[in-house]
């Protein structure tokens, strides 16, 4: 069965990120000049404007910065089976924030500061989505 949900379309800036996800590594950019870590990937560093950069592997650990619980599915036909689902902005240990889903967690358990770690959901042969699971208590 084909995958009906939106699939990321990698571009010249993001291709290494999605290739990393494909290999179950969460890669983020670090500026080679000033050391600022950035997400999403961009050609230039917004702090020092350098383009030289390294891809570093995030620890994949972070905390919930904010979250929502989607209860009304949009588009209906795509998300009807998924609601309620949690979308969160996760602050990674490296300091950048990344939107994702919190999985294996009920809406009642999610809270600000909840410690989470990345896992990868293989949605097709090329794309694996980084999603987050609450740390074991």
């Amino acid at each position, binding site marked *: 069965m084909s995958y009906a949900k939106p699939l990321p379309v990698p571009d010249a800036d993001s291709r290494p990120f999605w290739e990393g996800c494909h290999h179950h590594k969460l890669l983020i950019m670090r500026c080679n000049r000033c050391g600022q870590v950035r997400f999403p990937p961009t050609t230039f560093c917004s702090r020092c404007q350098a383009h030289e950069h390294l891809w570093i592997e995030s620890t994949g650990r972070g905390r919930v910065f904010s979250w929502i619980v989607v209860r009304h599915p*949009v588009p209906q036909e795509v998300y009807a089976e998924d609601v309620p689902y949690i979308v969160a902005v996760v602050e990674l240990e490296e300091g950048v924030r990344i*939107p994702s889903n919190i999985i294996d967690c009920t809406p009642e358990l999610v809270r600000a500061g909840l410690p989470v770690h990345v896992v990868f959901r293989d949605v097709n042969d090329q794309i694996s989505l980084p999603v987050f699971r609450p740390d074991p208590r």
Partner: protein
Amino acid sequence: MWKLRDKYAIAGIGWTDYLKNSGRTVRSLASEACLKAIDDAGLTVADIDGFVSFNFNDSVPAIAVATEIGVPAAGYAVDFLSGGNAANMIILTATAAIEAGLAKNVLCYRAMNGRSGFRLGGGRDIVAHGVNQYTAPYGWITYPQAMAMWCRRHMIEYGTTSEQLGEIAVTFRQNAALNPRAMQRTPITLEDYFGSRMIVDPFRMLDICLETDGACAVLVTGAAQARDLRRRPVYIMGGAYGGGPNQGEDLFDAIRWPDLAHNYTKYIAEDLWRSAGVSPSDIDLAQIYDCFTYSVIMQLEGLGFCGEGEGGSFIQGGRIARNGKLPLNTHGGLLSEAYIHGLNHVIEAVQQLRGDAGSLQVPDAELCLTTAGAMTCGSAMVLRN
């Protein structure tokens, strides 16, 4: 900083009916609102030489309106690809164009079949290009879903409650009940608010604005000319547009925004008040951009009506009701009057300041704030009579 205090005025306003299914082209709606604004001012089509609008590819180009209504020489006809953030900015841009000699009489309009045509509140492009590749694959797609993340962060940092959001919805509906233009005129209670369907927690249905087919237009001209026209001028006293660092790649994107508990108002407040030469305590009433209930709280904080984190309690206890100390959204707002992307707030402000607001009139309205936008960028004006 905008430096044209009291040099320009709104001389005419026009609007269409606000409907769910207009059965008309957007060009037709825009043209009707513009013709009404010209007539309201006592000008003729031949006097118009500028147009400014904004759209999400859901409107009609300025030159199309100029063509339909027969403007002989549209010199300054500009369309911004923008959202509600631009609803005051287009008016400030009109003053800049006139000041620079690019035009004399400028129509600012917003037109859309926002319910029967392209629905901003529904799905966006479901193909995850650009910055959407980091959001849409997780089912984070619609504007209610985007802004619920901001509201939650405000609740986390400051303890803002659903009761407080509900009071905003109830208060604005009380205003709409008096407004013949309003799409939703049936009064609601806090119980109705809590009983409305949870769409995207923390937003219930009644936290979310309407979707509307319709158009608004505002005619901007020099203050001296405005004094000779049919209507009492409403002067543009101050204005500001902008946001802080990391405004993102589009209006949805706030991944790098410093703190979701504060929005653009924090960054434009100083310019706004300095440009107008007044402070929040001087404001008699305000039309605050209310695409969602919480955005009212964030803007009141950002503009300095109360301290950061105090907005939730500030709006409680009737302060923002029409007989309160700071009446807000006296027409019912985007939540209950209509969603013409914030330009209907300017229409209401002008009517209040002219004393033309009929059943909605607030006594002694002399200074009215309008705002436009809810997230990383936006605009605001101080208008006076």
